[in-house]
């Protein structure tokens, strides 16, 4: 199978021009783009090689769902494939860029309506162009006491991120699970509302996860089966109090007891947030660049790591999480958690508390920010990063083994190990960040080699990634191999039935329409 980046949309220039003209007549000239600069502006900000391999041919930016319908119908008529983005800030996974070059970007950035916010039932109904900053500003400006779940890079879209299975670090951190009730433009241009929304004016559209009949919503996440034009998102009511617990651990092996002890507390829902455990690299990369510490080739040696830990006063691993809601309950839970940890370590938690009436800055509310963007510059030059994120059982021994395999591989390919783990209730996502210099071709080669080795190592142990960069969508799809790739074959069967012209996001998550599949 060829690398996904070698495929190209088979659209003749004349056909493309006719399509863009037809779209311009419907949505206005100023929202149709095909100049060289505009095309380049949709390339991958952190491209892992020549960005032109994922270059679109143009972009169109509708304002309404009706305009999306029109564009999708015209795309069918002129056989021009599209690539949907909400805000296209999918940095580390391809940004706004498509898997297949030559497609037209369907850019929903202008669809910025916040349609409803219901404070009592704690949800909002928004369009895909609404960014984390937009929603937060709206909640603040209107004094609405609902909390969001934001990201290290909050430039993106609340819906786009959720559709990509994005994550935060609050009790609402599994963003795709907060989606409730969607409106979609289907590949044939029809408009569909899911769940209870399939009934006219049903007020439970965004309140009940189940409608009548099969539930379709998750099938439109990480997929190319439809274009989401609005969705309900559940938000977190502002809690009565929070309690923050922090602990460091000294040795790489400590991840075993950390994961097992925290894991039990997650499964029991004593800790309700997605709990993160991170290594020292986070602090170094947020504050400095590699050459501040070490200029040699290969991964940083242990004495440099020691200096980093000294300077920032951090452990090899660093645990931080919060308990939410009633202060008395938080205190009781904190005591229980401390007892659990006393059984496995002499380290103790640092604890701080917030309750209603205390300064809001201490509450631990997840606010939009871009602080993590700083880390991307670690390797020097024009920085970039890509994350490798397999999902494992919530088990300390297995997490240690995965971490250790990854660390050895990264060293072998000459990269510093940056690890963070997200503990869910029964699974753990073991994320390793690879930082690179975008202009160092030799380093980019090593990134590709490392990434493919990591996919293979994980698959050999039975694990797959939760999300991946556009360069690796086929590789990861192939690692899901049960019964001769039955799930991929099923997805492609569905794709062909829903989207016979292969219009929507060809190659997304390795799902190719028949029209482009032959080349595979």
């Amino acid at each position, binding site marked *: 199978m060829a690398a996904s980046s070698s495929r190209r949309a088979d659209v003749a220039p004349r056909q493309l021009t006719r399509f863009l003209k037809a779209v311009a007549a419907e949505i206005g000239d100023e929202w149709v783009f095909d100049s060289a600069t505009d095309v*380049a502006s949709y390339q991958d900000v952190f491209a892992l090689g020549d960005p032109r391999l994922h270059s679109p041919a143009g972009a169109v930016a509708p304002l309404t769902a009706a305009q999306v319908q029109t564009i999708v119908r015209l795309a069918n008529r002129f056989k021009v494939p599209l690539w949907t983005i909400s805000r296209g*800030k999918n*940095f580390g996974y391809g940004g706004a860029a498509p898997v297949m070059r030559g497609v037209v970007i369907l850019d929903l*950035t202008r669809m910025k309506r916040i349609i409803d*916010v219901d404070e009592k039932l704690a949800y909002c109904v928004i369009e895909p162009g609404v960014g984390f900053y937009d929603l937060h500003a709206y909640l603040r400006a209107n004094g609405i006491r609902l909390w969001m779940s934001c990201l290290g890079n909050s430039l993106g879209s609340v819906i786009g991120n959720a559709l990509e299975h994005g994550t935060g670090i609050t009790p609402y951190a599994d963003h795709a699970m907060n989606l409730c009730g969607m409106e979609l433009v289907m590949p044939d241009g029809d408009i569909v509302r899911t769940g209870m929304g399939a009934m006219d004016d049903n007020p439970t559209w965004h309140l009940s996860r189940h409608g009548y009949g099969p539930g379709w919503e998750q099938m439109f996440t990480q997929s190319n089966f439809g274009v989401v034009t609005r969705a309900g998102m559940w938000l977190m009511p502002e809690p009565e109090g929070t309690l923050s617990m922090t602990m460091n651990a000294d040795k790489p092996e400590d991840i075993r007891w950390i994961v097992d002890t925290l894991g039990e507390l997650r499964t029991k829902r004593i800790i309700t947030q997605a709990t993160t455990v991170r290594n020292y690299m986070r602090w170094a990369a947020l504050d400095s660049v590699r050459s501040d510490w070490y200029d040699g080739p290969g991964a940083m040696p242990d004495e440099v790591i020691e200096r980093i830990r000294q300077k920032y006063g951090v452990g090899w691993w660093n645990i931080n999480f919060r308990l939410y809601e009633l202060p008395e309950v938080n205190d009781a839970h904190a005591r229980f958690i401390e007892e659990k940890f006393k059984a496995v370590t002499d380290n103790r938690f640092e604890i701080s508390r917030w309750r209603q009436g205390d300064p809001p800055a201490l509450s631990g509310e997840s606010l939009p920010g871009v602080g993590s963007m700083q880390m991307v510059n670690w390797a020097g030059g024009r920085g970039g990063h890509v994350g490798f994120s397999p999902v494992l059982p919530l088990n300390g021994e297995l997490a240690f083994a995965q971490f250790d395999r990854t660390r050895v591989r990264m060293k072998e390919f000459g990269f510093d190990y940056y690890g963070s783990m997200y503990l869910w209730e029964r699974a753990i996502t073991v994320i390793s960040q690879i930082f690179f210099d975008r202009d160092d071709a030799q380093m980019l080669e090593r990134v590709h080699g490392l990434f493919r080795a990591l996919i293979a190592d994980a698959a050999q142990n039975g694990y797959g990634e939760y999300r991946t960069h556009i360069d690796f969508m086929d590789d990861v799809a192939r690692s899901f191999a049960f019964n001769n790739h039955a799930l991929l074959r099923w997805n492609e069967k569905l794709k062909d039935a829903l989207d016979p012209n292969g219009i929507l996001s060809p190659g997304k998550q390795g799902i190719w329409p028949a029209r482009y599949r032959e080349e595979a």
Partner: protein
Amino acid sequence: MRRIMGGRVLLAMLPLLFWGVVNAADNRVTVEPGQAYFMYHCETCHLPNGTGTKLLARRVGADKSLLVRRTDLVGDYVRAVVRNGVGGMPWFTRVEVTDAELEEIVNYLTRNNPR
């Protein structure tokens, strides 16, 4: 239920930190259009301690790291940076920052240049 209809979620809800100019006469804070667009699109990285400010401190020195205080930014340079990115700064499409908005931002960032 609260609604806002159509259009951009913009000037009505300016972000957290504020570069507004306080008018001494009536104590009202005024925001130029260019400033508002800068706050909306750029400020999160170009505040003190923002990732833009930090990296600029490395490259052009601390005294020039805060864009809103600069007196030497050339319009064409700002345009090129916003459309093509620079170093660790990602670029912006013309959908996200329209040409008209960019012109306002350029006016704002060059307002204190010696003429």
